[in-house]
C-alpha cells in the first residue's frame, strides 16, 4: 500500500487489468480514423469540384459533411478516448475496470451507434444541428451507452486501490459529467416520426442551446479527455514526471469553470443580444490562460528530454499534438474578438481553426497513444520506427498545408466579400466571384488531407505488422525494463522540498480561501448573466412584440424540412449580421424575431454559398427550379451540386399534420384548422406553384413534387416578419 508520506513500498501489485477492452477500442479507433479521413478527403474534393457529388442524393456534400464530422469526433475521437481512458485509469487507480459487462456493452453500443449514423445520415435523416445530427432514437442510445461508460468509470474510481485521484482522472470525470448534461439538454426534441423530430427550442433560443452544446462538445469531448490522456501518456512515454502537478490541478479547475460560458462566441454579430455576445467574448478570452497552462505543463514535462523527442515518434506526436493544442487555444480566443470574428465567421478560417485542432491536437495525441499502446498491449516492439517517423512528417506537413490554404481562403474571401469601393458599393457584388478565387485552395486543402491520410496508412501497416510479429515479446519487455528502471522514492523528502513559501503558501495552505474565491468567481459570472437577463426580459418581449411573424404554411414547412434533410444549412446561412458588408450585400440585418418559429434554427455557420435570409421574392420560382436542377445553368462557375431528384421525388405529406400539431404544441401560432388541413393546403399550394412554373416557361409535371415545397420555402425567407 502506498502512503502519502514515507518511503514508497515498491512491492508489485498482482492485478489483472482488462486490456482486452482497450485493444478492441484501439482497433476501432484505428479503423474509424481511416473512415473519417476518407470522408474528409471526399468532402474536400466535392467542394473543389461539384462533379464529385456524382449527382447522387446520398453523396452530396450536405449529407456527407455530417457523416465526416461525426466519424471524426465520435467514431475516431470517441473510440480513442475510451481506449486511453480505460487503459490509463486502471493503472492510475491500480484496479481492474469495474464491470466487464459494462465495458463490452459500452464498446458494442458505441459501434452500433456509429453504424446507425452511417446509415441514417446519407439518407438525410438528420436533426440539422451540428455535431448533434443523429435523430432521437440514436440520441437515446447514446445517452444509455454514455451512462454505462460513466458508471464503469466512476465505480472503478470508487474501488481504487490508489487513494490519490491523479489529475488525468479529474479530466475524465469532468468529461463524463458535462457531456451527459450538454447532450441531454440539446436532445430535448419532440418526435414527429421514427427518424424525424423537432427541437423544443427555436430561433435564437435554439442557437444558444446549440452552441452552448457545440462549443462544450469541443471543450469536454475534444479537450478535457485529451488533456487527461496527455497527462498520462507524455510522462509515461518520456518516463519523467509532469512538470508541475500544482499547475495541472489549478488549470483543470479553472478550465472547467470557464469553458461553459464560451458558447456565444459562435454567434457574434448575429441577432443574439449584445450582452450575451460580450459574455462569450470575455470568457473565451479568459480561457486562453488555463488552456496554455495545460500546454505549458505538457511541453515542459519534456524539458531535458528533447533528445528523446528527436528519436522517438511517440514523443513527436504527443509533443506536436500539444503544440497544436496551444495554437488552437490561442487562435480560438483571437477568433472570439468581435472584430476578428467579423472577418472569420462563415469563412474557411473557421475550418482551418477546427482542423488545426482536430488533426493536430486530437489526431496526433491519438496517434502517439496508438504507437505507445500497440507494442505494450501486444507485448512486442513496434515493427518499424522510421515508418512512424515518416507518418509524423507526412501528417505534420499535411496539417500545415491544410490550415495555411484555409487561412488564405478564409481571409481572402472575407476581404473580397467586404470590399467596398469609393462610391460605397460592393466591389464583388456576386458571391461566386469570391468562390472562383478560392477554389484552387480547395484542391490544395484536399492535398493536405491526403498527405495526412497517407501518413495514417503507414500507421495501419506498421500496427498490423507489429501485431503479427508478436514473438519478439519477451526480449522487448526485458529491454524496456532495462531502459526504465523502477525508481525508489523518498516521498517525505519530496513533500518537504515542495512546501512553498510566501504568498503562494497563503493560498495553498488555506483551502477555505481557495473555495471562497472559486465560488465568488462563479457567482460573479452568474450575476453578469442573470441580472441583464432579468432586467431586460421586458425589453425582449418588447423586441418580439414589435414584430408580427407569420408561421410557415404547410408546403413551406415541408420545404424547410427538405432544406434540413439536404443539409443546405451547411453551405448557406440565414443570418444577416449587423456588419456593413452583410447589410450591403444581403439587406437589413436579421432580427431575432425572424427565426422565432424555426425548429431547429437555420442561422448556419458557414457560407460556402450566399446567405439566404432575405432571398424570398428576389428571384422568380423558375429561377430556383433551374438553379436546383443545375446550378451552372444560372451561375456558370457555381460549385453547388445538382439536386435533380427534387423534381422527380413525390412530396411525402404523410406526416405533415403531425408536424403541424407538434409545432403548434411548441408555440407556433397554428390554428386547429391549419393542422387539420395541412396536407390538403400543401397539395393545393404545390399545384398552384407547378401551374405557375409552366406559365413561366418551365417544365411540366412538377405538381406534388418535392421541388415545389423547397421553392415555396425559399420564397418565404425574409417575408415572414412585419414591423407592427
Amino acid at each position, binding site marked *: 500500500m*502506498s502512503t*502519502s*508520506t514515507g518511503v*514508497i513500498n515498491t512491492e*508489485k501489485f498482482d492485478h489483472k487489468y482488462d486490456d482486452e477492452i482497450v485493444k478492441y477500442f484501439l482497433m476501432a479507433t484505428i479503423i474509424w480514423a481511416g473512415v473519417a479521413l476518407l470522408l474528409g478527403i471526399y468532402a474536400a474534393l466535392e467542394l473543389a469540384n461539384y462533379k464529385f457529388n456524382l449527382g447522387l442524393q446520398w453523396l452530396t456534400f450536405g449529407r456527407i459533411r455530417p457523416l465526416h464530422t461525426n466519424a471524426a469526433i465520435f467514431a475516431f475521437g470517441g473510440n480513442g478516448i475510451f481506449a486511453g481512458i480505460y487503459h490509463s485509469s486502471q*493503472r*492510475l487507480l*491500480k484496479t481492474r475496470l469495474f464491470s466487464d459487462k459494462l465495458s463490452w456493452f459500452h464498446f458494442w453500443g458505441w459501434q452500433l451507434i456509429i453504424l446507425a449514423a452511417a446509415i441514417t445520415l446519407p439518407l438525410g435523416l438528420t436533426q440539422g444541428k451540428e455535431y448533434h445530427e443523429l435523430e432521437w432514437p440514436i440520441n437515446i442510445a447514446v445517452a444509455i451507452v454514455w451512462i454505462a461508460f460513466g458508471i464503469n468509470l466512476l465505480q472503478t474510481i470508487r474501488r481504487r486501490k490508489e*487513494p*490519490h*485521484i*491523479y*489529475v488525468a482522472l*479529474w479530466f475524465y*470525470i*469532468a468529461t463524463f*459529467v458535462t457531456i451527459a*448534461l450538454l447532450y441531454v*439538454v440539446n436532445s430535448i426534441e419532440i418526435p414527429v416520426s421514427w427518424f424525424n423530430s423537432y427541437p423544443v*427550442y427555436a430561433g*435564437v*433560443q*435554439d442557437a*444558444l*442551446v446549440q452552441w*452552448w452544446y457545440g462549443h462544450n462538445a469541443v471543450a469536454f469531448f475534444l479537450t478535457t479527455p485529451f488533456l487527461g490522456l496527455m497527462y498520462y501518456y507524455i*510522462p*509515461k512515454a518520456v*518516463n519523467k*514526471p*509532469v512538470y508541475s*502537478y*500544482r499547475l495541472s*490541478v489549478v488549470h483543470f*479547475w479553472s478550465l*472547467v*469553470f470557464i469553458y*461553459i460560458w464560451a458558447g456565444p462566441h459562435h454567434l457574434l454579430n448575429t441577432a443574439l*443580444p449584445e450582452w*450575451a455576445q460580450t459574455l462569450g467574448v470575455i470568457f473565451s478570452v479568459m480561457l486562453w490562460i488555463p488552456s496554455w497552462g495545460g500546454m505549458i505543463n505538457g511541453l515542459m514535462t519534456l524539458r531535458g528530454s528533447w533528445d528523446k523527442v528527436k528519436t522517438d515518434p511517440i514523443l513527436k506526436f504527443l509533443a506536436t499534438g500539444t503544440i497544436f493544442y496551444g495554437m488552437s487555444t490561442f487562435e480560438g480566443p483571437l477568433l472570439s474578438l468581435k472584430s476578428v470574428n467579423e472577418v472569420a465567421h462563415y469563412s474557411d478560417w473557421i475550418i482551418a481553426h477546427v482542423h488545426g485542432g482536430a488533426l493536430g491536437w486530437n489526431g496526433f495525441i491519438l496517434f502517439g497513444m496508438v504507437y505507445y499502446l500497440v507494442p*505494450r498491449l501486444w507485448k512486442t516492439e513496434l515493427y518499424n520506427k522510421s515508418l512512424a517517423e515518416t507518418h509524423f512528417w507526412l501528417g505534420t506537413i499535411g496539417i500545415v498545408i491544410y490550415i495555411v490554404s484555409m487561412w488564405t481562403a478564409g481571409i481572402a474571401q472575407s476581404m473580397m466579400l467586404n470590399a467596398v469601393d469609393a462610391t460605397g458599393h460592393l466591389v464583388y457584388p456576386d458571391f461566386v466571384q469570391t468562390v472562383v478565387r478560392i477554389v484552387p485552395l480547395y484542391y490544395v486543402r484536399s492535398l493536405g488531407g491526403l498527405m495526412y491520410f497517407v501518413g495514417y496508412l503507414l500507421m495501419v501497416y506498421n500496427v498490423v505488422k507489429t501485431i503479427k510479429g508478436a514473438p519478439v515479446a519477451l526480449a522487448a519487455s526485458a529491454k*524496456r525494463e532495462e531502459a526504465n528502471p523502477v*525508481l525508489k*522514492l523518498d*516521498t517525505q523528502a519530496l*513533500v518537504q*522540498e*515542495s512546501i512553498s513559501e510566501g504568498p503562494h503558501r497563503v493560498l495553498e495552505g488555506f*483551502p477555505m480561501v*481557495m*473555495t471562497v474565491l*472559486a*465560488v465568488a468567481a*462563479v457567482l460573479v*459570472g*452568474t450575476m453578469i*448573466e442573470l441580472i441583464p*437577463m432579468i432586467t*431586460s426580459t421586458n425589453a*425582449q418581449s418588447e423586441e418580439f412584440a414589435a414584430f408580427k411573424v407569420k408561421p410557415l404554411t404547410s408546403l413551406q414547412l415541408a420545404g424547410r424540412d427538405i432544406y434540413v434533410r439536404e443539409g443546405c444549412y451547411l453551405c448557406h446561412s440565414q443570418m444577416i449580421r449587423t456588419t456593413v458588408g452583410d447589410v450591403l450585400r444581403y439587406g437589413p440585418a436579421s432580427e431575432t424575431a425572424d427565426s422565432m418559429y424555426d425548429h431547429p434554427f437555420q442561422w448556419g455557420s458557414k457560407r460556402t454559398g450566399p446567405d439566404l435570409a432575405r432571398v424570398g421574392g428576389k428571384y422568380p420560382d423558375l429561377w430556383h427550379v433551374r438553379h436546383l436542377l443545375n446550378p451552372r445553368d444560372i451561375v456558370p462557375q457555381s460549385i453547388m451540386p445538382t439536386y435533380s431528384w427534387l423534381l422527380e421525388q413525390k412530396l411525402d405529406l404523410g406526416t405533415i399534420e403531425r408536424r403541424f400539431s407538434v409545432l403548434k404544441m411548441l408555440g407556433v401560432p397554428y390554428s386547429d384548422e391549419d393542422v387539420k388541413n395541412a396536407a390538403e393546403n400543401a397539395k393545393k399550394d404545390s399545384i398552384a406553384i407547378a401551374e405557375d412554373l409552366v406559365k413561366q416557361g418551365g417544365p411540366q409535371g412538377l405538381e406534388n413534387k418535392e421541388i415545389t415545397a423547397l421553392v415555396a420555402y425559399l420564397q418565404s425567407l425574409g417575408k415572414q416578419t412585419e414591423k407592427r
Partner: protein
Amino acid sequence: MSILVLIVPLALLLGLFFVGAFWWGLRRGQYEDLESPKHRMLLEKD
C-alpha cells in the same frame, strides 16, 4: 432569450457540482500531497 432561464441555472448547477467535487477532494486529502503523485504514476508497470 427566455432559454437562459434554463441554461444559466443548468450551467450554475454544473458549476456547483464542480465546486462540490473540488470541496470533496479537498476534504478527503486529495490535495495534501501535490508532489509524489506525478512520480508514483510512473512506477506503475505498463
